[in-house]
Each structure stands twice: as C-alpha cells, then as structure tokens.
C-alpha cells in the first residue's frame, strides 16, 4: 500500500515537472480603434535544448511561422540562462484571431477560446469593448460565486504576485485568513463539482435504462451527502469506489451491479474534464483611448493583466474584458455651436420682448 502511494506521488511530481517545462508566456493585445489588433507574445524558457525550447506544441497560445520573431537570452548571477522569444503579428480583425484559435496546435488546443471587439457611437464619445473568452469545462458544475463572497471572489481571481504581496504585507494576517477561507471554500466547490458532474454524466450514460429517472432524482437529492462522504474519506475514496461500497450506498445493491459500467465511464469522463491539461499563461490588453472599465488587474506597466488558469473556467466561461473611449472632437464642437446658437436666440427674444 505504501509503495503504491509513493509511486503515485512520483507520478504526480512527474506531471508537475512536465508542466514546468512549458515556457512562461504573456500575451499582449494592442487593440486599435479600427478593430485591428497587434498581438505580442513573450515566452521565457529555461529549456536547454533549442529544438524543444519554443516548440509550437508547447506554447499556450496559437503562433506560427508568419509571426515576426525575435530571440534573446539573459544570464542571472548564478549563471542560469533564460531564453526569451518575442513574437508579434498584426491581425486585421478579430475574426483572424478567432481563426487562429480554431486552428491552434499549441498546448491548449483542446480548449475553446475566442475574442470579440465592438465599437459604439455615443455622440460625445466612441466606446470600444474588447474581450477574450475561454469556454467552460464542466457542464453540470456550480458557479464559484455561489461559494465565495465578493472579497473572496476578488482574491480568487487575483494574480499570484498580488496574493504573495498581500500575504507578506502589513495586513498579512487578514490576507492569510482570506486565503485559508478561499482555499477551504474552493475545495468544497471542487468536491461539489466532482459529484455534480459525475451525476450529470452518469444520467446521460444511463438514459434509456429502466428506473433511470428515479435513480438520478435520488442521486441529486443525496448530492450533499455524497460530498460529505468524499470530505470525510478522501484517503480511502479509491478503495471505496473500487469495492463498490459507494455505489451500493447510493444506488442500492442491485443497481450498483446493473449500472457499474456507466458509473465507471462517467467517472472517467469527469476525471478527464477535471484534469484538463491546461497550461497557464497571462493575458494583457492595451485599449485605444482612455480606459473606462475592466475586470482585469493593472500591472506595473499600467497595462491590464489577467492570469489564465483552468480553475477560472471550470464551471463558467472566463471572460477577460476591457472598455475604453475616445472623445468625438467634431461632436463636441457641433454641440457647443448648437448650444450657443439656441442660447443667443433666447437672449435675443428676451431683449426684443423687453
């Protein structure tokens, strides 16, 4: 038993090592008033092998040979080399970006992502909205906002650097408590999603079988009970599942045997969805004119920043958006003249009447 656990831990470490090999990537979108976008990607890697270093299949966002690419490197005090690749391309419209997402062959190719841009004429100003969205992974999951309050939500979506700073700053106690609370609640959220998703997938697979509706209803009604068992017995969960104890508890002796295949398949689907092999990266947006709204964070270069992590789009689409405005100078002049004209007319009338 112990040996098996060690092997599993090693496998887990192996998985982490693999994910560490991917370059650290920051994508910056420079949005222009005509809807064109200059997209810049900065990738940093410590990989020594030149062939593997910036392999397209390892990069988090779509990129190809049509991009203007510049390579450089930095050597730190210890003598470790960091390789930096900067790629740039001008997209004439948002549709071009969406096309590249559709034909992506990078490490996050299995995730549905898209961008959008719209321009609104509001007489005194022209308003622009740009967004990038990652579609949700789970079909039957619960939104994270059902589990966290506003302050916790803000913390949950915060970039790691900001979290670190807060936890080491003057209000460290407050932020550590907040961090613990978020961790506890998101653990619960994950467990609830796991159960809900399993029930959802199981109901899909068991469609058409006798007593199906009743079983699903009963499973849904006992969802919280299911979650509590997971919480209590997380270490023995695999054996509970393999021995059929969990299924017998919730489906009954007869149904546990009858629906064993569907239950196992549903668990495989859920595991695959929840273990989504997503490689994190950061997204930045630079809007034309004056920024008036965003759901992102502001980094040291005064650019908008969003961390992109799989947790964020587990149960809801993750949209990174920014809005800005450019004043319509001609509209201001026309309005000024119009007001002066009407005001003079009113004064003339008052004088003539007097």
């Amino acid at each position, binding site marked *: 038993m112990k040996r098996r656990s060690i092997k599993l831990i090693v496998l887990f470490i192996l998985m982490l090592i693999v994910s560490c090999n991917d370059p650290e990537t920051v994508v910056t979108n420079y949005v222009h008033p005509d809807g064109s976008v200059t997209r810049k990607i900065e990738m940093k890697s410590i990989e020594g092998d030149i062939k593997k270093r910036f392999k397209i299949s390892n990069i988090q966002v779509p990129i190809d040979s049509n991009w203007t690419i510049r390579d450089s490197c930095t050597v730190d005090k210890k003598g470790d080399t960091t390789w930096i690749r900067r790629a740039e391309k001008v997209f004439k419209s948002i549709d071009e970006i969406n096309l590249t997402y559709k034909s992506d062959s990078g490490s996050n190719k299995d995730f549905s992502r898209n961008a959008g841009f719209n321009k609104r004429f509001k007489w005194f100003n022209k308003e622009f909205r740009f967004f990038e969205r990652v579609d949700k992974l789970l079909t039957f999951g619960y939104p994270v906002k059902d589990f966290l309050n506003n302050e916790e939500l803000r913390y949950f979506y915060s970039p790691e650097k900001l979290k670190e700073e807060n936890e080491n700053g003057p209000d460290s106690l407050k932020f550590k408590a907040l961090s613990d609370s978020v961790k506890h609640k998101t653990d619960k959220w994950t467990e609830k999603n796991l159960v809900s998703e399993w029930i959802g997938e199981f109901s899909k697979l068991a469609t058409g079988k006798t007593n199906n509706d009743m079983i699903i209803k009963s499973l849904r009604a006992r969802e919280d009970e299911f979650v509590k068992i997971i919480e209590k*017995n997380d270490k023995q969960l695999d054996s509970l599942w393999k021995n059929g104890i969990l299924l017998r508890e919730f489906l009954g002796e007869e149904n546990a045997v009858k629906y064993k295949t569907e239950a196992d398949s549903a668990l495989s689907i859920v595991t695959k969805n929840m*273990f989504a092999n997503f490689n*994190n990266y950061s997204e930045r947006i630079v809007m034309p004119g*004056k920024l008036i709204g965003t759901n992102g964070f502001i980094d040291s270069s005064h650019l908008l920043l969003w961390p992109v992590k799989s947790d964020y789009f587990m149960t809801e689409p993750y949209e990174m958006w920014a809005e800005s405005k450019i004043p319509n100078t001609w509209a201001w002049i026309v309005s000024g003249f119009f007001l002066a004209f009407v005001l003079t*007319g009113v004064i003339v009338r008052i004088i003539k009447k007097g």
Partner: protein
Amino acid sequence: MEPGNEKYNKVLDLLRKSKPDLDSTDDIKREVIKRIERVNHSRLSLSDLVDFLFGWVYIQWVRRSLITASIALVLVFIYQQSVILKRIDYLSRQTIVTERENGSAPADEVEKMFMVYRNSGRRFPTKNITISEKQMKELIESVNELQLKYKDLENLIQEDPELKKMIEKKLIENNRTKNNL
C-alpha cells in the same frame, strides 16, 4: 402788386427755366444711386440678419423644440461624463500588481490538483509526456532516495516492537473505518 415784386418774380422764373449746363450727368447719377444703396444696405445687415438667424424664436413650436433639444444634449453630456468619471475613479482605486504574472502553477493550485486527483479515484487521464534526460536522472535519483528512506523506516519499525504494534493498531483502525462505511 408792387413793381419791385414783379421784377423779382420774373428773375426767379428766368432762373428756374435756365438749367445748369452739366458735363458729367452719368457720374452724378451713379454716385447718387451708390449713396442710396449704401444707406439701404446698412439697414438690412442689422435687422435682416437677426431676423434670418433668430426668426425661429417667434415660432413657438420651433423655439420649444430647440430648447428641449439643448436641454437633452446637456443632460446626455452630464450623464455620460459622470458615468465615465465614476468608472475611471473606480479603476484608479484598483491595486497595482507590481510584477508581471508568470505562467507557473502556484502551490495552492498544485494542492488542488492533488485533491482532485485523490477525490476522483486516483486516476490521471492518459496523455503523452516528454522530459529531458537530466530531469529523468533527477527523478530516478529522488525515487531511489525515497526508496532508501522507506527501507530505513521499515527497518526502524521492525527493530522497535512497540512502534510496530502502534502502527499495526493504526492500520487496523483505518480498515475498520473503511468497512463501517
């Protein structure tokens, strides 16, 4: 009638009938017309222009419509600007992240992945992985080290009967909890 007055009247008649001999009548005519036009023109530019531009003030519905449009324009301006200023003020109060976010997985995320792994029946989805030779060596070394430590721990338990008893008791307790469920 006095003879003096008669003479006077005759002279006056004579003078009236004898017209002056003008050599440039056209010039005089042009000059007179010009002066008349200038007088008329100055009168037109003041009143006519005002009437032309602001004649609408005497038509009630036009006057009311234009005033309403002006008020609406001012209100739209005030509303738009206040909404924008409010949003900008909210943005300016946002915390600035001092450094760029990187792509590596933070510790709590790793923990969460591990939790999901445990809760999902300890299964990983199948996928291809590639690691460098150096990393593989490091991995094998750490596994060997872990195995050595495990052996040491096993020997330690075997040598100490009390410790062995305690661990066995704990294992039995664990199994009971499993079976009770």
